[in-house]
């Protein structure tokens, strides 16, 4: 079936199957910054923004996204580079596979919480797994980005 999706500000008509999740549709259509790491909604690698809120695209049916504003990391390159530069500066871009999803969640958090505490950050990002860094360096980076003492 064909659906209309607004991705990164442009309207697209895409062929999808009714049971297809956004992550597959986005990757098939070249939005390769969206990664996939599990089948159970546990890793956060597939995080995108829908109406500016972080959403797991592996658990979000493509058809449900009609009429909504979909943002992938390709659509927010400047902001991703800003957020990402803090990760890189701290050296927590190891394999980097978790980074796009993490960056998108952080972008969502910045919109929602103005002066987060360390616990706010941990809670907001708790669904974003990382197997390389052990999180402590990522927390340092995010605190610097958000100006948290």
């Amino acid at each position: 079936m064909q659906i209309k999706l607004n991705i990164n500000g442009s309207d697209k008509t895409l062929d999808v199957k009714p049971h297809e999740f956004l992550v597959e549709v986005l990757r098939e259509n070249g939005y390769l910054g969206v990664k996939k790491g599990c089948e159970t909604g546990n890793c956060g690698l597939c995080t995108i923004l829908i109406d500016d809120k972080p959403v797991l695209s592996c658990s979000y049916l493509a058809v449900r996204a009609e009429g909504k504003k979909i943002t992938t990391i390709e659509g927010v390159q400047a902001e991703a580079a800003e957020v990402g530069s803090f990760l890189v500066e701290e050296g927590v871009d190891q394999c980097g596979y978790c980074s796009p999803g993490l960056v998108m969640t952080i972008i969502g958090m910045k919109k929602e919480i103005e002066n987060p505490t360390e616990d706010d950050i941990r809670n907001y990002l708790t669904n974003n797994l990382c197997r390389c860094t052990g999180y402590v360096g990522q927390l340092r980076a995010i605190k610097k980005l958000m100006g948290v003492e």
Partner: protein
Amino acid sequence: MKAVNKPISKIDGMGLVTGKPVYTDDLAPKDALIVKILRSPHAFAKMKDIDVSRALKVPGVECVLTWKDIPRIPFTRSGASFPEPASYDSYILDEYVRYVGDSVAIVAAVDEETAEKAMKMIKVDYEVFEPVIDFEKAIDHPSVIHPDHKNYKPNAIIHPNFDRNVACEYEYDWSKGDKGIDEIFAECDVVIENTTYNQAQEHAMMETHRSYTYKDMHGRLVIVSSTQVPFHVRRTVARSLGMTPDQVRVIKPRIGGGFGAKQNLQAEFYPAAVTMRTGKPAKMIFSRVENTICGTTRHRMRIDTKIGAMKDGTIRAIDMEVLSDQGAYGEHSKTTLAPAGYKTIPLYNKADAYRFHGYTAYTNLPTAGAFRGFGVTQGIFATESIVNKLAHELDMDPAVIREKNMLKEGETSVGFNLSTVFDDLSELQTAESCGLEQAVKRGKELIGWDEKFPKKEVSSSKVRGVGMALSMQGSGIPNIDSASATIRFQENGFFTLLLGATDIGTGSDTILKQIAADAIGISEDRIRVFSSDTDLTPFDVGAYASSTTYVTGNAVINAGKLAREELFKQAARLLETDVDSLEFDGDKFTDKKSGEVLDLEHMGTKLTYGKFQHQIEVTGSYVPYKAASPYMACFVEVEVDTETGIVEVPNMVGVVDCGTPINPKLAKVQTEGGLIQGLGLALIEKISYDSRGRMTTDSLMEYKIPSRDDIKTNLVVEFTDTYEPTGPYGAKSIGEIVLNPTPPAIQDAIYNATGIWLTDLPMTPEKVLKALKEKKNK
């Protein structure tokens, strides 16, 4: 020295964090056939019949391959150097299946749905056997897991015995002077024993196994794979398909984590077989479930350790008996078994005797493979655990018993020879660098050991305790690992560094560039790095055994020195002077005699075009000859909730001797990541199977790795001020050592807090509560 020891950022960092398409699946051709594997529902069975005729009729199916279509060439997926210290005991597809999830048939179709539909149409008639699930009952079990081993190529040095389900047996027995170890035990004031178990940890790297393949215009097979060992993939896939290595090219793009998982070959064979059969591009992406049940795990081990000491704490003898669970195929049997002893006992180099004996047993469980730490993790849990226990027995401070017995800089250790020159003890190797004294001293300060040891009550139900452990590893495998690096000087004065080394997220492309810059004597900004393509880059064994910084780093230095020599020669030619009168400041040559100047920009261009053309391209190689072990001390403070059994780790300290950290920023993050993986091993990560061998923890929902919420730890990492004379600019390795010490340190902190002694990882709240209850009832 300019670039080394500087915290520069990873060269691929910005590309990674902004989501550029750089990983295997991002690069695969859109028309690649989708490859799926029909997997065994049984832990142990033989296919009496397999009928794929209906599957082949599904529209969109391109091919279905069974064991009958695959060359009967036994090989090993271990991804180790040639000749592999592992038996050739597996095929791409076999008529036997030996664990739940073992490969039964390969299906390739135009899309995933079609492939899945076709898989359901394959009819298999199994003869099911009693599986071997409990590794402690595996040896001499009535079920022989590899009954049909006449075509296997057993590797003699690992002593397999297929009829007994033994993948490997290994032992040594050393004592100073004429007395045997048992006599020395008899002379000791105290002899204690301890048994430790660890679980079969999952790597759980975020990017699952994956590869895609195609034929190039010459008909050669190209494999693009998320692998740690491109050159071993070339050789192994070629062998398994009856081809020669020249017919295969392997490319590794960026990869989403490995931790050893991607040393063992996993996905490569299946699309390769399909491409060779159909001529079409093909790709195979492991689902998370496949990754969990069909990838490898850490070896589950039971280690019975015995230690003998005098009243003053002098350790005199250490004896280890190991049983290791190999799972279905013997990919890393001796290579993980032996290090459990020989990369732990050198820590206690003053003892008079060591004995080690171990078996690796085949079971009908997923294969155990390479995993960061590689047997040493298990061995460190055993030795550090028993040394802590000994300290308690003698009523000594665990830090003090370490200070008394541990290896110090400039000392020899028999254990080094056992691991590097294999039993040749004629000339004992020296620890030319060893920062253990510094590490223990600094670690104690950072954790506040003297104030906090052994425990502090926080409230009626919460008590804090501190614990510590040491750790060591190697830096590559002496006399076996090898690496090379090529440096090319280009137009306008830039350099290309070609590396066979495999950056798996560790930042090796970056740190090797730093090393190259200093070896040539230029700024690192002039260097572009290209790595991991078997057609284009020089040979390197790949990313395992903590080898890249040390082994490839030394190869890069050798290449850099040669490049520098060549630059001087060519500058002298262009300036019409001799090499001795040249000065080089990193950007330009000056002829001291004439005052004439030639900058690298002009020099590069001159050497590229026209009558002065001369390509500077040099290759340096390196083979390590000693262990160059890194060392560390880890201190933790735990808080045990005696009502819930929950153990939190508010403070953790790692002081690491990796020699010179080439890049202190990346080394620090690698240490943090390793310590937290160790924390997962110690407290969180739990793997379970049902009685028929089906893994019940096959997703990230059931198999929990540490999440952000679990880590409220104040983690402090520091490096000792040590310099390894044989290392590149004084460096040793960092990759694996940092995972090892957390489990024994946490185990002892829990003991110090509560008096319970947990010996079976992970130390979950249930086990804590049970032990607390038992203690109370005593």
